[in-house]
């Protein structure tokens, strides 16, 4: 909250803008959260005796042009936008409105799944060269603290990772899966060196559908 406040306090009129898809599922950045954040900011402004107008709004997705139509007028007239979308949405809004300051309201942490309501775990880092076929469907890139491809490292203990007793050792999970599938012989196959050029290491990535 303090971090957000420091970014927006210099403005007179800020649109607190929700994104109602992925981040809403995580109860972080939906239109409802935008409403709550806006009222917290209004209270803060009153307490600090600053006159700032916080308007809350939102759309379904902040990463595609067509969804912006209904908020076009509002955003055109905003002095600044505080976006509750992930890092992608924030950048999308910034590109769309080149003269408007756009601030992130969230720290985008990872691509994950919802293992139980309210519990999210990182499952993929979009490394561009998927190894799941060889690792029993458990991703060592996103789920092993060292991204080792021939694990486990020496720190694996009682199924947990050396970094914390709260974190599953991805390689224990991989071995459990290989064992359950009767594929333990796969364990002794050395994994080839990873081609990180298809990961972030290769520079910004893009993907284009042919004939679209």
């Amino acid at each position, binding site marked *: 909250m303090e971090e957000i406040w420091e970014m927006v306090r210099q403005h007179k009129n800020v649109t607190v803008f929700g994104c109602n898809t992925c981040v809403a599922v995580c109860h972080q950045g939906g239109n409802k959260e935008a409403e709550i954040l806006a009222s917290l900011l209004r209270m803060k402004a009153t307490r600090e005796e600053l006159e700032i107008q916080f308007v809350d709004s939102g759309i379904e997705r902040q990463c595609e042009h067509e969804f912006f139509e209904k908020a076009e007028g509002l955003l055109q007239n905003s002095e600044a936008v505080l976006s509750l979308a992930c890092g992608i949405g924030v950048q999308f809004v910034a590109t769309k409105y080149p003269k408007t300051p756009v601030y992130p309201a969230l720290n985008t942490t990872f691509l994950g799944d919802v293992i139980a309501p309210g519990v999210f775990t990182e499952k993929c880092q979009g490394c561009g060269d998927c190894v799941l076929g060889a690792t029993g469907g458990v991703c060592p890139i996103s789920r092993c*603290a*060292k*991204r*080792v*491809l*021939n*694990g*486990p*490292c*020496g*720190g*694996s*203990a*009682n*199924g947990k990772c*050396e*970094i914390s007793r709260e974190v599953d*050792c991805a390689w*224990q999970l991989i*071995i*459990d899966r290989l*064992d359950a599938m009767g594929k*333990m012989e796969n*364990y*002794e196959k*050395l*994994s080839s*060196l*990873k081609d*990180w050029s298809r990961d972030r290491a290769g520079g910004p990535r893009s993907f284009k559908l042919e004939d679209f």
Partner: protein
Amino acid sequence: MELKTESKLEKIFKSGHLAVTSECGPPRSSDPTHIIEKGRLIKNHVDAVNITDNQTSVTRICSLAACIHLKNEGIEPVLQMVTRDRNRIALQSDLLGAASFGINNVLCLSGDHQSFGDHRQAQNVFDLDSMQLLQTVRHMREEGKFLSGDEIKVPPRFYAGAAANPFGDPFMIRVPRLAKKIAAGAEFIQTQCIYNMDRFEKWMEEVRDRGLDGKVNIMAGITPMRSVGMAKYMKRAVPGMDVPDELIDRLAGVEKKQQAQEGINIAIEQIQRLKEVKGVAGFHVMAIEWEEKVPEIIESAGLYPRPEVD
């Protein structure tokens, strides 16, 4: 005797001796005096000395520089290399640099996660893992090429080693994992500190059943306990460490002042027992910041004087 490298360690193994190595951690300052003194303390009692590579992710003098200091003292260094901090370009470059100073041994490790160390906010690298680093070392030596495929005019010829933990989890892959490291190119193995002797002997039995003892030189890891407190700490807090209660009871059974000596006695007894185990090719004595005791342990265990192989 067909030698693949200039390594003294390789010569020791190939001439049928039990090898003895030790380990030193470099200082956290740019003053090398400390590491040179430690090296002098153990110089005559070991065949080679490992230099740790920013162990427990705490920043120190780099392993390569510390190895050069030892080399200057006439000690055979083993360069430890972790893949945590360097990508494949830096790793291969350091291997070339080390070889240019006549360093002949490298121990390939992944390294502790940086969350244990002094720079928890650091980015890690882990471009390669420990097995892939082994493959790299062997590839450079055998093929005379970089990972990129480019030729190396004078390839570095390292004797390649790795670590093994007979006690780690999951138990099921303890021996397959060793087989995998051998397949990746390991020629010598230094094991995790051994305290549970029965379980270690069981592991060695399985190693022999698969004939792996004939393919790699296994050095048993020995670390003397300094106190009952240290034993309890290792049991509780160090992942992958198997400290049996008998050992804790034995240390607790002697007066506080005597515990350090008792720890040394235990280490000596362990070495004597393990000398009889088929497939044990040597000992790696890791006396963490207690190097002055290494000569006593090695002498009392009957591993002194060290053989001349040059």
